[in-house]
């Protein structure tokens, strides 16, 4: 993974000193809360329902064992012993003291981490494919490009006070695991250059990005992004924060006109002053080699015997591992969705275990997925059973990768000051209803995504089943959406009628799932395929049928 040089270290040090100074001025009263708020947000510090929340950047979701140990240490020392992995491949702590943040940032800097630009109206952490560098269908590793963008966007003098937040996603594989079409800018690396999508997003006005450029050369990526951002910074709406995202500008101008303005701006830019030279791209790429793959002798017979002997292990292998570009390795999903517990939470002890097993079995490399799980991208098959045993002892072996209980849920009203309704207890109730692993295996791939308000941090629009919390005179209600997907065939789910009270949701979902099991043509017809074949209405009726 990328290793800081003295420049990168100096930058984070300077930036942390700046923030420490801002905190001190806030505490002394020199800065008002109104003035301080955007400054603290630019450092990932929110004031939530119960306390400050600190969102730590995990650049493009990549972590080392050493970094995960540091996160565990922070959870233990400064928080209440757990952290929450988010759908933006970041990590949040829920009970942070303002006065402690400079110290925490110093600790993070020791392991080349920070909380910069994890909130605020600036360019946020670039997200990418959690299987980058390991997946079989990848033709371009997106991580070096994400790192290039990270550096270019850090403290960008022109784009720190944009109309609204700005999220970039990038993928380099056939299958789009980074959901590039639901980001402000989505980049899809192809052999002939990047396809660039603009104006996608969820939230109040969900939309899919429009492709405005193909064949963009990597050496010109930054200047083109600069042109895209400049048009947005100048003309994005600032009168109404709900209409300030780039998707609204693109919709108002039309994608063609937006593209024309970008091209015009791009022509006027001094590209040589903006684009990093090829040598810099080569330098960044050099940090993302394959690990030194162990040529451990893989004993297929023993591996198969272990699966026969241990059914739980067999299930875990089937659901939580993905084919690797090398036959003797796999990528492993460590599910943070044990039945009945908050999706995405990990205790400090669990973080330590993940760091340890990554060190021992996975070349010290971990990833955060937008599904709120932790990924070990490269694991020798020979070590799989030993790894599984260690995870199992730490309650980290839930074998539900991609299944109905592998839900995404935002923090919702249990933590979030913007929420209308709780998300986590609902996720817990649903997962309890589908606690039977034989049943979830039979159901197969089905993604439920829950947001506690229209901001859609839980990506409910692109869940096969999406759930949106709304507030009806102080009572929590949930609207159910059907038919969304975030992959290369991205589609937005559609609301299916009246909202349901929390108690009614798990049963409603169960009815839909039972109907799907009756109607599917074979085991290989996934839920989303059946919804697309039969139409949403077929299933919507089951949702709202009286129990």
């Amino acid at each position, binding site marked *: 993974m990328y290793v800081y040089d003295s420049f990168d270290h100096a930058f984070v040090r300077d930036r942390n000193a700046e923030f420490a100074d801002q905190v001190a001025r806030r505490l002394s009263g020199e800065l008002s809360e109104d003035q301080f708020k955007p400054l603290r947000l630019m450092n990932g510090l929110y004031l939530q329902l119960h306390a400050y929340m600190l969102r730590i950047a995990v650049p493009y979701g990549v972590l080392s064992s050493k970094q995960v140990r540091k996160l565990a240490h922070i959870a233990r020392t400064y928080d209440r012993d757990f952290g929450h992995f988010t759908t933006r491949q970041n990590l949040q702590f829920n009970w942070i003291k303002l006065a402690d943040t400079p110290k925490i940032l110093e600790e993070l800097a020791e392991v080349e981490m920070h909380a910069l630009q994890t909130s605020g109206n600036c360019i946020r952490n670039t997200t990418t494919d959690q299987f980058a560098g390991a997946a079989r269908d990848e033709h371009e590793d997106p991580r070096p490009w994400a790192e290039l963008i990270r550096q270019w966007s850090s403290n960008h003098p022109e784009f720190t006070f944009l109309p609204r937040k700005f999220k970039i996603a990038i993928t380099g594989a056939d299958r789009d695991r980074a959901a590039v079409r639901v980001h402000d800018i989505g980049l899809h690396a192809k052999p002939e250059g990047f396809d660039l999508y603009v104006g996608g997003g969820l939230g109040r006005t969900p939309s899919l990005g429009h492709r405005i450029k193909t064949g963009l050369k990597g050496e010109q990526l930054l200047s083109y992004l600069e042109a895209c951002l400049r048009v947005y910074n100048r003309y994005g709406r600032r009168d109404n924060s709900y209409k300030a995202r780039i998707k609204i500008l693109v919709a108002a101008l039309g994608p063609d006109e937006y593209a024309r303005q970008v091209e015009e701006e791009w022509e006027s830019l001094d590209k040589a002053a*903006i684009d990093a030279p090829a040598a810099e791209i080569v330098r960044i790429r050099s940090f993302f080699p394959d690990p030194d793959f162990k040529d451990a002798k893989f004993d297929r017979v023993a591996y198969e015997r272990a699966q026969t002997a241990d059914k739980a292990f067999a299930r875990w292998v089937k659901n939580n591992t993905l084919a690797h570009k090398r036959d003797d390795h796999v990528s492993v999903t460590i599910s943070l969705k044990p039945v009945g517990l908050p999706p995405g939470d990990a205790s400090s002890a669990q973080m330590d275990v993940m760091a340890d097993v990554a060190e021992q079995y996975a070349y010290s490399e971990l990833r955060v997925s937008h599904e709120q799980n932790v990924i070990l991208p490269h694991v020798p098959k020979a070590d799989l059973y030993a790894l599984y045993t260690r995870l199992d002892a730490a309650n980290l072996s839930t074998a539900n990768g991609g299944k109905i209980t592998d839900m995404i849920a935002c923090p919702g009203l249990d933590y979030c000051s913007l929420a209308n309704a709780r998300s986590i207890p609902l996720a817990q109730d649903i997962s309890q209803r589908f606690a039977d692993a034989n049943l979830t295996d039979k159901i197969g791939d089905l993604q439920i995504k829950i947001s506690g308000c229209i901001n859609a941090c839980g990506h409910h629009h692109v869940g096969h089943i999406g759930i949106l919390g709304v507030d009806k005179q102080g009572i929590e209600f949930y609207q159910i959406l059907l038919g969304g997907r975030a992959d290369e065939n991205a589609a937005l789910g559609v609301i299916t009628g009246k909202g349901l009270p929390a108690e009614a949701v798990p049963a409603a979902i169960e009815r839909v799932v039972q109907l799907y099991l009756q109607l599917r043509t074979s085991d290989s017809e996934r839920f989303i395929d059946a919804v697309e074949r039969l139409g949403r209405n077929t299933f919507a009726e089951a949702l709202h049928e009286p129990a």
Partner: protein
Amino acid sequence: MSLLNSSHTPQLVTTDGEIIPDGWTLLADEETTGVDGPYVLGFDRALKELDGLNGHYGIRVNPGDDVRLLLPFIEKITLIEVSFPGYRDGRGYSTARILREEGYTGAIRAVGDVLRDQLFLMLRCGFSEFLVKDKDPVQAIAAAKSRFSVFYQGAADTNRPVWALRHTVES
């Protein structure tokens, strides 16, 4: 509890940390230009009248004004005031960068809600004067200039992006 820093009367300070008097008068749109210049004209008025005017003017540019429209008259402009009605409105940064990219070499002054924490960004975008609300504007400029030693992007100032430094060192 100390006093809110932004409650101090704004003072005009230059990139070099010099406090300077403001010799300019902002003309309301209906006011006629007398002999007591120099004057700052509103943006729309400037577009209408600059063609027929002689001499040198300052122009007030608000967020949303397309500063490129001033380019035909740039020879007559020696000051551009870029206003920040609220400090979260970042359009002024693009305005300044475009002016510098287009070769404008006169003064670019930040006015409005200009606070110490923005000065670093403004310096990088090509501003040269700051009407800043701060108890110690000179120190604020000095702090903004020394805060960072590393710059990841090329911008309107003379700081070289880190990629340029990396690859000069190597070659």
